[in-house]
């Protein structure tokens, strides 16, 4: 956010704020322990506002739930901004001192009247107005989001629309105020921290800046490495499609199951010249590989660090011996280097980390010893006397502002790519359930009494109009494929809205239905919005 790729607040601030938005996030089930902090905030008097097409278990706790149409988030955010501006609740001083681009933004949102927002989101105008005023008037307010914002073809614009609200009201860079993506996997943040994104080196340092490139090159003994940004995941699949990308080394991902439009993903992966998969399981992707490198489990069988959604770098430690043949990621990579003719020795995780600290200023003060003593440290932590940073962007409140100003971005509403039609009249959205995780590879191994298997959740009204019973097996089809699945009636869903998870690909390959329309900026696919139809499966004719 404004140059730093992480949530601005700490969890503790959720306990001491006045308004919390959960926007496209069912944190009750997907981030249960973060939700504990939210609930403490609620008990301390914070108003909770949930924005979600589904009335989720998180929404059940909310003081206000807005059941928007899937993918209409920008219409809502822009209309809220217009309400705030017209009510003279914009923080003019902050805007003038700490931001850029306000005029263009204000012109853009002026078109988002409440009437228009009601038409585009489906949410009554008075409710939109009310939450906008609640947020603007609160002394402190936080906006938190998850994949409901980012698994869209215009994910980046969605995020920018939320950031605009924080800037407009000066609700960033202060205690209890902030803009927070809740990371879906235990080290998504850490992956970014370490430069596992196309344009960055560790510490979010820009690969394309010569001085930075030089710093790394000299630390690595004059090593040659690209000085232009690479591809993100969706671009890699594009490149595979065009024959530009022929070999891939995949570490700890299962794209054959987790990619939208799964049929296409499997076809492209199968057509590679060389596929190496390093994983703790023989995943479906690994089954397609030419070489599989069995790895130790990062969280329990090896040492290292991960970074959480409040930018806290934390130690993971080896508690178990890995199974025979499985090796630590560091060992594997160093062995690969050795075979390629470069001897990196046998560094410990701490030695690797110390090298990172020497190159990444935001991690510089995070010696293992300090990570142990302080139960992890929130970046930035520039030196070993620094306690870590509870919230980001306090600099925006300095007079004059330290560092660059925060930009507004005028963004327009752009509904999902997979349009509803007479043929595909039902909006399918996807998500996680409390006891399961992603493609179920890990969670499938423990016996959860909550688990009921995959089902297509639909409103009872849709069930009745389709003439299907609760529990009946139906055919669900999108423009890309179709699956057979049992329906389950879910009264909290409105007619026209259906829900599935991705947890049981062996039972139901949900991603056969989803669309791979991706955000050109972030490379995330629009898992949250497919158009489907549901057909009753005719009874077999009597013989």
């Amino acid at each position, binding site marked *: 956010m404004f140059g730093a790729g992480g949530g601005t607040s700490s*969890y*503790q*601030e959720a306990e*001491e704020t006045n308004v919390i938005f959960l926007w496209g996030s069912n944190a009750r089930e*997907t*981030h*249960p*322990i*973060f939700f*504990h902090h939210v609930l403490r905030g609620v*008990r301390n008097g914070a108003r909770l506002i949930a924005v979600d097409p589904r009335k989720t278990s998180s929404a059940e706790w909310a003081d206000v739930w807005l059941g928007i149409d899937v993918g209409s988030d920008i219409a809502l955010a822009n209309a809220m901004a217009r309400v705030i501006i017209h009510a003279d609740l914009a923080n003019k001083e902050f805007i003038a001192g700490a931001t850029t681009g306000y005029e263009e933004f204000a012109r853009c949102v002026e078109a988002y009247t409440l009437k228009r927002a009601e038409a585009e989101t489906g949410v009554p105008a008075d409710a939109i107005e009310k939450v906008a005023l609640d947020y603007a008037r609160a002394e402190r307010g936080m906006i938190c989001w998850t994949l409901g914002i980012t698994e869209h073809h215009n994910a980046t614009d969605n995020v920018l629309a939320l950031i605009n609200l924080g800037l407009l009201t000066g609700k960033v860079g202060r205690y*209890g105020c902030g803009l927070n993506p*809740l990371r879906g*996997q*235990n*080290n998504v*943040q850490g992956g970014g921290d370490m430069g596992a994104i196309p344009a960055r080196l560790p510490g979010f340092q820009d690969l394309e800046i010569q001085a930075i490139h030089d710093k790394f090159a000299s630390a690595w003994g004059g090593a040659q490495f690209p000085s232009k940004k690479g591809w993100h995941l969706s671009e890699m699949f594009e490149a595979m499609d065009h024959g530009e990308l022929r070999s891939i080394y995949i570490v700890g991902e299962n794209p054959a199951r987790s990619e939208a439009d799964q049929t296409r993903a499997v076809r492209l992966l199968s057509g590679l010249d060389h596929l190496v998969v390093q994983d*703790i399981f023989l995943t479906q992707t690994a089954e397609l590989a030419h070489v599989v490198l069995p790895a130790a*489990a*990062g*969280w*329990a069988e090896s040492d290292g660090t*991960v*970074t*959480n*959604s*409040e930018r*806290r770098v934390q*130690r*993971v*430690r*080896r*508690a*178990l*011996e890995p*199974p*025979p043949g*499985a090796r630590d990621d560091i060992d594997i990579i160093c062995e690969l280097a050795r075979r390629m003719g470069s001897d990196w020795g046998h560094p410990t995780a701490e030695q690797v980390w110390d090298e990172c600290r020497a190159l990444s200023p935001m991690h510089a003060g995070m010696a293992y010893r300090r990570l142990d003593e302080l*139960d*992890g440290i929130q970046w*930035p932590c*520039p030196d070993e006397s*620094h306690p870590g940073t*509870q*919230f980001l962007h*306090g600099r925006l409140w300095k007079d004059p502002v330290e560092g660059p100003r925060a930009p507004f971005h005028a963004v327009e509403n752009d509904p999902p790519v997979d349009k509803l039609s007479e043929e595909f009249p039902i909006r399918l959205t996807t998500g996680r359930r*409390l*006891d*399961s*995780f992603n493609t179920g*590879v*890990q*969670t*499938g*191994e*423990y*016996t*959860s*009494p*909550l688990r009921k298997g995959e089902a297509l959740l639909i409103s009872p009204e849709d069930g009745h109009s389709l003439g299907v019973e609760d529990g009946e097996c139906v055919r669900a089809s999108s423009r890309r494929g179709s699956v057979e699945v049992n329906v389950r009636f879910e009264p909290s869903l409105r007619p026209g809205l259906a829900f599935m998870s991705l947890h049981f690909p062996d039972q139901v390959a949900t991603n056969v239905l989803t669309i791979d329309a991706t955000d050109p900026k972030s490379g995330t696919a629009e898992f949250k919005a497919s158009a489907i139809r549901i057909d009753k499966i005719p009874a077999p004719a009597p013989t």
Partner: protein
Amino acid sequence: MAEAVFVGLPKRFVSLSIDGREVEVLEGSTILDACRRLEVDTPTLCQLDNLTPVNVCRVCVVEVEGARVLVPACSRRVEAGMKVRTDSERVRHSRRLVLELLGSSVDMSLCSAQVRGWMERYGAVPERFGVGAATVAQPVKVDNELYVRDYSRCILCYKCVEACGVDAQNTFAIGVAGRGFDAHISTEFDTPLPDSACVYCGNCIGVCPTGALMFKSEHDMRGAGTWDEGRQSVTETVCPYCGVGCMLELHVQDNSIVKVTSPLDHSVTSGHLCVKGRFGFEFVQRRKG
């Protein structure tokens, strides 16, 4: 790069005397906090640092000069000039009786060594109420694959109810039902857990002081005689699932995870986890070499 850190309003110190020794603690502290500051070992059963004090077990009672009855150290806030006695005859008597009354009605054999130490210190002899004394003995409830409930061991400290409720999980799958000696922890209409609101976060197990709530893996191993804490290591690491970053303590015996807990004082979890973090570890040890 340093950012401002919110520290709240400044607090004053309050001075009081405990067993004749002066001590200063922050205003708003409890007598228990002050006792700990002086390293006065104070027995507690229903108190836990990550839960709101319910002061029901009454084993922490102390004598405060001027008070008609004894007061619970765990919840009573300090006042300036308070004179507290933690080892008077009255205090010792009530602590002994609380331990005896519990010991005579509940199976406390899996309580910590610390609890047994208090029993000894206060000369508690639970047997003295005679063989006919009513107990809470009942069969173990095994109704799911993740954890078991053995209410013969329940001292009704309310900790599990608090962890399931307002203090952490806010699921409220269990509450206290009935009253008097018949009061007990129960789901609605005593329905089995799979039919209840339980979401299997296991935070009730995490706070249970008597072994009444237990991982099924531990229960089974104890049944088979293979549970051996002497051979277990505890390693802190981070949960492999979502991006919240919950600190786990993996209890490992013979290269197998047998139990998962979280440190009470960790700022992310306060000791509480979700079902995936608490129980979702099997995958790592079901891989074959």
